[in-house]
């Protein structure tokens, strides 16, 4: 009898190990590989635009931290991470001189640039293994007033990318105040609150990011 109980315990134990391996370990590893693969896309746009667009690492780290703060499920966090790498891939279709222009953009050029989420999404759509990221990529510059019901992760990307860009080009104080001004109109209130908390906690608040290399390394 002891033998039977002992064997059943061993069997159940190894089955649980198998299940853990199949449902936890392997998917996590697959996701890492996914990210390593799509990182090339972000790098491509970064090189094409002289670092102006496509930068992924700072956005990725902050976006994941904020997503955890908002309590997004693991699945959405993974989609978010992939979207960070894929969001600007549509810029391969935007003329080189527009991306690298040192003078202000014309109205037409700005309109063209504003279409990049759409182009990115249509490129991502064509990669079977990444199709599920396309909607989020399409919405990564979503405006709260226009689409308040868009997924929280889309609002997160939209607000966080603006914050990072403003902080890099001007100062984090300005970035923070612009995010605050946009609450309820351009940005999702819950998302802005979480971003500002995170930024505050990481000590990026009130610091001049343009001169601080800590975040970018």
């Amino acid at each position, binding site marked *: 009898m002891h033998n039977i109980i002992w064997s059943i315990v061993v069997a159940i134990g190894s089955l649980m190990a*198998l299940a853990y391996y199949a449902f936890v370990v392997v998917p996590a590893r*697959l996701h890492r590989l996914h990210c*390593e693969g799509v990182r090339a896309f972000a790098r491509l746009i970064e090189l094409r635009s002289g670092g102006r667009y496509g930068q992924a690492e700072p956005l990725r780290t902050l976006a994941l931290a904020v997503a955890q703060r908002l309590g997004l499920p693991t699945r959405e966090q993974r989609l978010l991470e992939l979207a960070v790498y894929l969001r600007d891939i549509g810029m391969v279709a935007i003329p080189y001189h527009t991306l690298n222009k040192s003078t202000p953009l014309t109205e037409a050029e700005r309109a063209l640039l504003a279409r990049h989420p759409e182009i990115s999404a249509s490129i991502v759509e064509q*990669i*079977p*293994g990444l199709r599920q990221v396309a909607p989020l990529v399409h919405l990564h510059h979503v405006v709260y007033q226009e689409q308040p019901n868009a997924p929280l992760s889309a609002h997160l990307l939209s607000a966080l990318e603006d914050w990072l860009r403003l902080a890099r080009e001007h100062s984090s104080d300005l970035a923070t105040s612009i995010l605050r001004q946009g609450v309820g109109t351009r940005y999702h209130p819950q998302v802005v609150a979480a971003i500002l908390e995170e930024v505050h906690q990481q000590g990026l608040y009130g610091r001049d990011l343009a001169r601080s290399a800590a975040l970018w390394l």
Partner: protein
Amino acid sequence: MGLASAVLLAWAGVPLVQQHQLGAFAAIVALATAAELLLVRYPLRPEYPDRGVWLSVSTPVVIATALTYGWQFGVWLDAIISLIAGLVMTQLKGTRPRWAFINTAQSILSAAAAGYTAALLHPPYLSMLSLRSGGALVAGLAIYLLVNTVLVSITISIAESTRLGWVLKQTISSVPRDVALMVPISFLVALMLQLQGVVGLLGVLVPYLALRQAFVIWARQQALYHQTIRSLGFLVQRAHPYTGGHLQRVAQWARRVAERLGLPPERCELVYEAALLHDLGKTVLDERILNKPARLTPEEWEHVKKHPQLGAEILSDTPFLSQIVPWIALHHERPDGKGYPFGLNSDQIPLEARLIAVVDAFDAMIGGEAPNQKRLHRRPLSIEEAIAELERGAGTQFDAQVVDVFKQIVHEWQRQREQHTSKASK
């Protein structure tokens, strides 16, 4: 193979299922069939995303049955479920009946080898709860998977006319892992059979789904790897007005040359991928310069010359492609040291980079790169002219050894094409 399996089946004879075992046997057949039908496709090559090996996970049930009731039972069980699965596959997935037949024969042979060994180590109708039975179980699973993998690999290498070594290398490495994953399930099934717990067999379905999930994810991992490469290739194509086939053709020629040069199989695959992506850096460049029909100014030319390094930089953060990075960075170097970006000497340039340079130049010369585009300084050459051009540059612009091998391959291809057209015209 079909004959051998028929003989084996006859030798095994129809095992007598006793009345009290009927229920259990029916349950096993149902369970094994369900497992066999939970198929996962595992793609082998990037250019054929829809082709590949089908994996299924009925093996643990077969081995457990062989251990409990005798090897003949295992063989018959596997024959029955393979036939059912074959039928379903031909009906639903459009698989050719030939494959279903081959698959059944393979299963019978593997099950016989495995079941026989397992039964030798551990005669049926003994208690499952001993070290000896555990050993028999592991041995049975290992032998089944080994025999099956070898048979499947032989079939694939014949069907796709690829080298057996390459296929085996892709398939056999996963055998130990699969054995480890299947042992607990097989053990549980055997235990349930021993305890006559037919209902308990239903509980086995849960770990089955877990196992299948693992298979699904491995298959996806492989598919993903191929997709990354194909989608990057797609971006290269739209960055520069290549005609549809240029990159694919260069990649296929490059792989063939690599094979002929005797590179190891997995390296030949990497050469294929590197050749597909060798111009990745052009996606970063100014398209007005790339598409300019006239001669480039020196500054514009400097801009274009950055593309090998840019391509390498795009892939630098992607560890699973790290091997091909130097080949992409150096595909415009020349053996005489007059290439760019570094002006390296022949022995400093990897063979793969020299190889890609030759194949790429050839396809560009015969007009494969942009036949619809009139370039002022370029006119498409005939194949003979292009080969002559490669020979003229052998040792200076192109690697002599690669040119030599490539020439043979092109001539063989021409001969084949002539035979083909003459057959077609008859």
